[in-house]
Structures are given as structure tokens and as C-alpha cells.
């Protein structure tokens, strides 16, 4: 049974929250491509319990180490996806509070969040089938990669909203999409393949939203804003991606168990990709993103790490 609030003690400085000025309230379409994403999201709605053949999963066909690996792989996906349960609503609130932001992204984000909830239900069901959700990483040191406080960050008036969208709606959602495609390529289990097909269809819209929104804003950025966006993207890649948030093999010192599990899940066709495939995906995606950002006047540097080739 649940009870009243369980909240950690405040240790961070007070936030700067924008004060909304609601009227005049523009509700006509001003970003038609993003409105189209909202409309297609509604039209392509699905139901995790009705539209996936869960009976085809048959976890008992895999031996115990593989089941345990799949359990860890999908638990980690769940730890990532639950970010959306606080981050997407916070982003939506920010769009509503900042004067002059368009209605189309606000509508779109409501659909995005429902889709994230459906992904969570699917991942939860997969972890349950393979032995039950793992409630935390094997190494507590890996937890900091997930505790990013994004909901607080985006609500803070000092956070530039376009820079936030660049990091977490365009770049990160685009990377997640490409990784999902790599996992899907290897997925031989029909239930997992079906889950990933739905997730990919949704994430195509999520990534498109971020990049389309940036494209609509970019012509109006000052040079200082372009540099700010580049700085925040660079920090995101160094502090999140290279810490193994999406690819645990990038952080073997704290995510070895998760990297090993992904390797086994990939071999068994349970919705993961081998390290080499993910490295290729990451390098190709960042190269493409760098080109798109350059067209907007945002210069992304080259990244070097001893875990993979420079990218």
C-alpha cells in the first residue's frame, strides 16, 4: 500500500520559474510539419496489450543465462524510458510557460508521452517474462548516468529551451531511434520484433519533432545562441553518452554487467546489438547529426575516447 509523499531533502538552490502570460492564446497551426506529427501520432495509436502477440515470446525456449541477460537488457531500457515520465511533462510545462512558444509542439508532446508510457508497459512486460524487473544497475556507480534531473533542468528559466530541444529531443531521440533500428535488425524473437517495430514508429516521430523544431528556430538564433547550443550538445555527449547511458560498453568500469547482458541478448536475437554494431551506429549517427547541425550554424567537435574510434 502506498502512503503520502516520499521526497528527498532539498539540497539544490531554488529554481527560477517563468511566470506564464497566457493571453493572447495562439491555437492556430504555425508549425504544420509538427502538427502533422501530432495528427499521425493520434492516427497510428496502438495498444501494447492488444497489438502485440505476447504468446510468441516463449521465454522458456532460452536457457537461464540468456533469460537473465534479456532480463537485464530490458530492465536497463526501462530505466531509460521512465525518464520520459517526468522529462516530457516538464518539457511540456516549459513550452506552456515561455511566452510565444507555439501550440503544435505542446500538442505533440502530449502524444509523445503516451507513447513513452506504452513503451514502458512493453518493457515492463518483457522484464517480467524473463524473470522480473531489476530495480537498479549491478554497480551503484552506474546509477548516476540515469539520474540526470532533466525535469528540473528544463523547468529552470536559465535553461535555453532551444538548446534543451537540441540535446534531448533532436540529438538524443535521434540516437535512440538509430539504436532501436540496430536492435530490431538483430531481433529474431517475434514478440520483441513487434515491440521494436511499434517503438521505432513512435521514435521516428519523436526524433523528427526535435529536428523539425530546431529547423524552425535556427534562422533566428544569434551567434551566441549557436555557441551555447554547441556547448550543451558537447557536454551531453561527454557527460551522458560517453558515460554509457545508451551504450553500456562505453563505461565498462561501472556498466560491465549491462554490457555483457546486451552482448548475450544480441546473440540470442532478443533485441540488442553487438558492441561493434552499436559503435558503427553511434559514429554514423553523430556524423550525420554534425552535418545537420552545421547547416544550422552549430559546430559539433570531434569526440575522442579510448572506448571507440574518434567520432
Amino acid at each position: 500500500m502506498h502512503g503520502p509523499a516520499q521526497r528527498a531533502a532539498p539540497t539544490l538552490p531554488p529554481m527560477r520559474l517563468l511566470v506564464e502570460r497566457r493571453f493572447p492564446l495562439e491555437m492556430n497551426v504555425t508549425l504544420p510539419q509538427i502538427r502533422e506529427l501530432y495528427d499521425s501520432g493520434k492516427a497510428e495509436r496502438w495498444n501494447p496489450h492488444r497489438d502485440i502477440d505476447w504468446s510468441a515470446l516463449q521465454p522458456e525456449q532460452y536457457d537461464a543465462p540468456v533469460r537473465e541477460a534479456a532480463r537485464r537488457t530490458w530492465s536497463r531500457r526501462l530505466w531509460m524510458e521512465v525518464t520520459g515520465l517526468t522529462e516530457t511533462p516538464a518539457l511540456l510545462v516549459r513550452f506552456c510557460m515561455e511566452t510565444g512558444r507555439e501550440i503544435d509542439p505542446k500538442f505533440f508532446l502530449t502524444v509523445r508521452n503516451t507513447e513513452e508510457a506504452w513503451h514502458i508497459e512493453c518493457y515492463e512486460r518483457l522484464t517480467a517474462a524473463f524473470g522480473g524487473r531489476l530495480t537498479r544497475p549491478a554497480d551503484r556507480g552506474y546509477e548516476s548516468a540515469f539520474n540526470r534531473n532533466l525535469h528540473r533542468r528544463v523547468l529552470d528559466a536559465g535553461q535555453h529551451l532551444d538548446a534543451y530541444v537540441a540535446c534531448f529531443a533532436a540529438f538524443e531521440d535521434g540516437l535512440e531511434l538509430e539504436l532501436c533500428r540496430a536492435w530490431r535488425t538483430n531481433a529474431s524473437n517475434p514478440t520483441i520484433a513487434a515491440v521494436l517495430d511499434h517503438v521505432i514508429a513512435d521514435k521516428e516521430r519523436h526524433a523528427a519533432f526535435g529536428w523539425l523544431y530546431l529547423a524552425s528556430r535556427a534562422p533566428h538564433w544569434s551567434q551566441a545562441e549557436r555557441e551555447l547550443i554547441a556547448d550543451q550538445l558537447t557536454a551531453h555527449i561527454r557527460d551522458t553518452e560517453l558515460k554509457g547511458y545508451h551504450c553500456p560498453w562505453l563505461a565498462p568500469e561501472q556498466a560491465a554487467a549491462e554490457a555483457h547482458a546486451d552482448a548475450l541478448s544480441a546473440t540470442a536475437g532478443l533485441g540488442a546489438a553487438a558492441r561493434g554494431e552499436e559503435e558503427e551506429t553511434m559514429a554514423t549517427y553523430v556524423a550525420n547529426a554534425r552535418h545537420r547541425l552545421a547547416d544550422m550554424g552549430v559546430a559539433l567537435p570531434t569526440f575522442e575516447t579510448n572506448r571507440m574510434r574518434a567520432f
Partner: protein
Amino acid sequence: MALSRDMSAQQAFEVVQTLLDAPEDRFPLTFNSDLPRIRELFHAATRNQWDPQIDVPWDQLDPDAYTEEQRYAARLYWSRRAWSEYGAISESPALQVRFGVEHRPSDMQLFFTIRSQEEARHAEVCHTMAERLGGYIEKPVQQLFEGSVATHGVRRAALSADIPLEGIIAALVCTAEEIAFDVFRHLEEITRDPVAKQVVRFIMRDESRHCAFGWYFLEAICETLTPEQKKMIEDSVVTMVEKVELNGYHSSWLAPDSPATRAEVEADRITYEAGLGSTIEEVEKPIFVGTLQRIRDQMQPLGINLPPFSHPKLGTI
């Protein structure tokens, strides 16, 4: 402060202590269904989605069947409804953030993802109605009326560490949404235009789940609360009724008398007489009174005792 193209350098911000002032700690990730009735609401909402563009028979709406005066009044009415639904698009996610920060049962977060989407659909469909009747109006015609429709402060309260969630849910959902639901049920009975009626019906269907969420939560949580905590819930509900509902948030005839209020009430009357979706004081009054009485009756067994409420047009309820 970083500025964007449209964000005026003068846009105000406030430095406030919020419940977000603690580092995130999502582990151990407990994701059990502790409130299965709310999880089922999420599943029911997933099954019963609708699309304002596809599922409303827009071709049956004939603006030419109405006079210029009726169309204008209805545009104003449906625009006002769109503003009200829009408010929920940012209030609903603010509450969802709070559920996560306070490690509330995951069922609540999941349900609110789709609740926010439903609020977006409501805003979209109300905006479309206004557009098809001649054009959406983007602000109250008379600025004075903004105070009655701008916001009821839920988003601010949702992020405040000092205001208990239980009070917000009791006030926003079990009170304000319950009142809204009864108004929609009443509108569904009296609205004659087939498209307006269908729109009201779709919204009402969603609102019934929104209300159920509030009561399921309150029933589950109240047995764990102290009398002092229940008193805080009472105070929140009283504030919602006295400062928001009796100030005309849902029903313009309850707003303080002014030229602005009189203009809104007149627009509602014309819309009602045209059968395009509004209602009027004479027919809505007993519904409003009945709703408040029912809310009081429903909260009393939970240990929440509401006082009498007074309003010049309603007397004492």
C-alpha cells in the same frame, strides 16, 4: 538569463523553492501496480482514444443554419472552452512531474500521460468548433474577464513543496473536474446541434475517467492520513470552490458582476438558445448545487468535512 527569439526580455520569472530542489534518485525503480484501479483507467483510456479530426462528423456542422449573432456567441463560448482545456495541458503534466518526484505509484504517472493527451484533444476540438463557426478568438473580449479564466494556480501548487498533493487532487480533480463533468453531462442533454453534442459527448467520456482517478486516489490515500492532513485537504477544496468555481471559472454567471461578465453571460445565453453547446444560469444552477452537495457527501466518509458555501446567486449550499 538566456533569451530566445520570442521570449521577451521582460518575461517575468520568480525564484522559488520547489519540490524539485533535491537531486534525482530514481533507484530502486519500483514500478509495481500499487493502484490497480488507476492502472485500469490507463488501459481503458488507451482502448477508448478518439481523434477530433476523424471521429467528429464535421460535415454535419452547418454554420449557415445560425444567425451571425449566434455564430459569434458560439465562437466566443467554444474559444473560452478551448482556453480552459488548454490550461489543463500544462497543469496535468506538472502534477505528473510531482508524482515522479514523490515516487507515487507508477499507475498515476502512466494514467496522466494519456490524461494530458486527452486535454490536448479537448483543446483541439474546442478550437476547431470555434474555427468552423467563424474563427477562434484568442483572448477574452473584455480584459476584465481574464481573471476568471486565466488559471486556477494548480501548476504552481503542483510544484510547491508546501502544498500536499492530496489537497491538490481533492481540489482539482474531485471538485473542479467533478463540477466540469456534471456540466458536460448537462450539456450533452440540452445541446441540439449534432456536432456540438458529439464533441460534448467525447469530452464527457474522458472526463469520467479523470474524475474516477481522483476518487480512487483519495480513497486509497485517506486511510493513511492524519486529521491534520485531512484538514489541509479541506482547506484546498474550500479554496478551489470559493476562489475558482464561485468566481466563474466554469460558469460565467458565477463571476463577479461587471460589463465583462455580463457580455460573457449574454454570449452563453445566445449559444444555449441556438443549441450550440452552452447553458444558462436558470438551468445550470440546480446542477451546480447538486454537484457541490454530492462532493460534500462523497468526501465526508473519507474524513473530509466541507463547510457551507455561499454565493449571491446561489445562497448557501
